[in-house]
C-alpha cells in the first residue's frame, strides 16, 4: 500500500445495533453488532484487506480497530460505514460547524489491514479513554 487512500466514513443505525444496545452496552451482542466496518469489496481489494479480518481506522481525531465486512446494505467505492456506538465514536470528529451536532457522517479516514490487532471491548475503549480502565491492555 504505497499511496494514501482516503475513504469517506459515515456512522449510522442498524437493527442489530438497536437490539444489542437494549440487551446492554456491556453485552457480547453489543460487541458483535458494533465493532465492524462495512466496506465496498473493491476498496478491500485495493487496500489488501481480507473479509472478516481486523483493520485499523484512523481519522483526524482518533483511531480504532474494527472488523472489516461487506455489508448487505452496500456502500459505493470510497464510502465506508461503522454502526453508531462506542467504536464509531472513537473516530468521529467533534467539530460541529457551530450547530452543536458533531460530524457523525462524512469525514475522511484511512483504513489499513491490522489482522494481528485485537478488538477492544466497549468498556475498555471508553474507560481507557478517560484513564479508568483497570483490565489488561
Amino acid at each position, binding site marked *: 500500500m504505497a499511496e494514501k487512500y482516503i475513504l*469517506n466514513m*459515515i*456512522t*449510522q*443505525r*442498524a*437493527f442489530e445495533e*438497536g*437490539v444489542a444496545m*437494549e*440487551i*446492554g*452496552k*456491556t453485552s457480547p451482542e453489543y460487541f458483535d453488532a458494533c465493532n465492524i466496518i462495512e466496506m465496498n469489496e473493491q476498496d478491500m481489494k485495493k487496500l489488501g484487506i481480507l473479509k472478516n479480518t481486523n483493520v485499523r481506522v484512523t481519522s483526524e*481525531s*482518533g483511531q480504532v480497530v474494527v472488523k472489516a465486512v461487506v455489508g*448487505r*446494505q*452496500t*456502500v*459505493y467505492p470510497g*464510502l465506508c*460505514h461503522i454502526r*453508531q*456506538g*462506542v467504536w464509531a*465514536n*472513537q473516530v*468521529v*470528529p*467533534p467539530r*460541529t*460547524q*457551530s*450547530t*452543536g*451536532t*458533531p*460530524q*457523525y*457522517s*462524512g469525514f475522511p479516514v484511512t483504513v489499513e489491514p491490522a489482522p494481528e490487532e485485537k478488538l477492544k471491548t*466497549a*468498556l475498555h*475503549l*471508553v*474507560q481507557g*479513554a*478517560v484513564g*479508568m480502565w*483497570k483490565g489488561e491492555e
Partner: protein
Amino acid sequence: MPKVYENVGCPYCGCSCDDVRVTVSDDGKKVLEVENVCAIGTEIFKHGSSEHRHRLPRLRQPDGSMKEISYEEAIEWTAQHLYKAKKPLMYGFGSTNCEGQAAAARVMESAGGCLDNCATICHGPSFLAIFDNGYPTCTLGEVKNRADVIVYWGSNPAHAHPRHMSRYSIFPRGFFTGKGQKKRTVVVIDPRYTDTANVADIHVRVKQGHDYELFDAFRMVMHGHGDDLPDVVADVPKEQILQVAEIMANARFGTVFYGMGLTHSDGRNHNIDIAISLMRDLNKVAKWTIMAMRGHYNIAGPGVVWSWTFGFPYCLDLTKKNYAHMNPGETSSVDMAMRDETDMFINIGTDAGAHFPIPAVQHLKKHPWVTIDPSVCMASEISDLHIPVCICGVDTGGIVYRMDNVPIQFRQVLDPQGLLTDEELLNKIADRVDELNAQGA
C-alpha cells in the same frame, strides 16, 4: 394468573407505537410475553424484568470501585455538587417522560446551569432550519390516510424506526389510500442501498454529503429551469432528477421523511432548510409535508416542555437566573464540552459515554459526573455516581411526544420495586438545591 396489558407504549424509537400487548407474571415482576412490537422493543420489555438491574444508587469509591448507597445519600451528593458548580450541564432526556423533563427544568433553574437534550446531536439542525424557514408538517395519520408519494431522504426506517413503514407510511390501507402500498410511490434517497431502498420503487443514490446540490436541482426544476441542469448532480443523472420531480409534482399528497443523512452531514441545518424550501415550491402545484424522523420515543418531549417553560427547545443557558438564553453553537453540550466550559455533568435518560465523540467525553470526565439511568451503560460505568430509576413505559407511565408531536399516554406494566421515577428523583434534588440556595442567600 398472568395479567395482560393492552395498548402499551413502546419506549424505543420516535414511532412511539402504542398498540403493544404485554403479559406480566401475577406478582407483577416479570414480563412473560410481548406482542405487536419489533425486536428492539421486545428487548426493552425483557430488560425491564432482568435480574441484573441495579435497584440502589452506586457511588464511586477512592479505589475506583462502585459502592451501593441510599437514595437519600445520592440526592444529597448531587444537590451539594450542583450547588457548588459554577456551570453544571444536565443532558439527555430522549428516554424519559414529560413529567421528568419538567422536573429537570426545575432543577436547572434552581441550580443556574445549562440544560440540553439529545436533539443537540440529532435533530438539533432541524430546529435551526425550522427557526429560519418554518415547518410545513402533518401528523402521521394524515400520511396513512392520504399520502400517495413517500420520500425517505437520508433516513433508514427499516433499521431505525422498524414499524414506521407498516404503521404510518407505506403499507397501511387508509381512508383515501384503500389500495395500500399498491397506490403509493416510495422514493428513497441515500448513498447506501439500504433495506429501506430495497422496499422502495425508486432509489436515488446520491453522493454522500451532496444532498444540498440535489435539493437545489429539484428546486430548479420546480421553478421551471430543469433544462439548465448539468448532466449529473451529486452523482444522480439528470433524467432521474426529472423523473422524481415529475412524480413529486403530480402527487395528490406527498410527505418527505428525513433523518441523520441530512442532519449529520456537511451543511447540517442548511440541508434541512433547503428541504423546507422545496416543500414550499411543491405546495404551489401539489400538497407536500415534511417530517423529521425523531429518534427516541420522547425526544420531541423536551422540545415541547421547555418551549412552554422557557421558550426554547434545547441548548438552554439558565446561568443568568432570571432569563434564558439559547445559541446552539455556543450553548450546546458538545460545543461546551469541547471548550471545557462546564464543571459538572449530569447524564439522564441517554448515554453520552457511548454516543458523544470520545474527545468530548474526555473533557466532561474532568469534572463530577452523575448518571441517572435505569441501566448499566457507558455513562454509568465512567460516572462518579449512578442513580437507577424507573424505565418509562415499563416501570412507570407518563406522557410522551411522538415524532409528529402527538402526545401519547404510556402505561406502567411492571412493579417498580422501590425504584424512583425521574420526576420523583429530580423533584427531591430540586427541593434540596432550593434549601441550599436559601441557606446561602
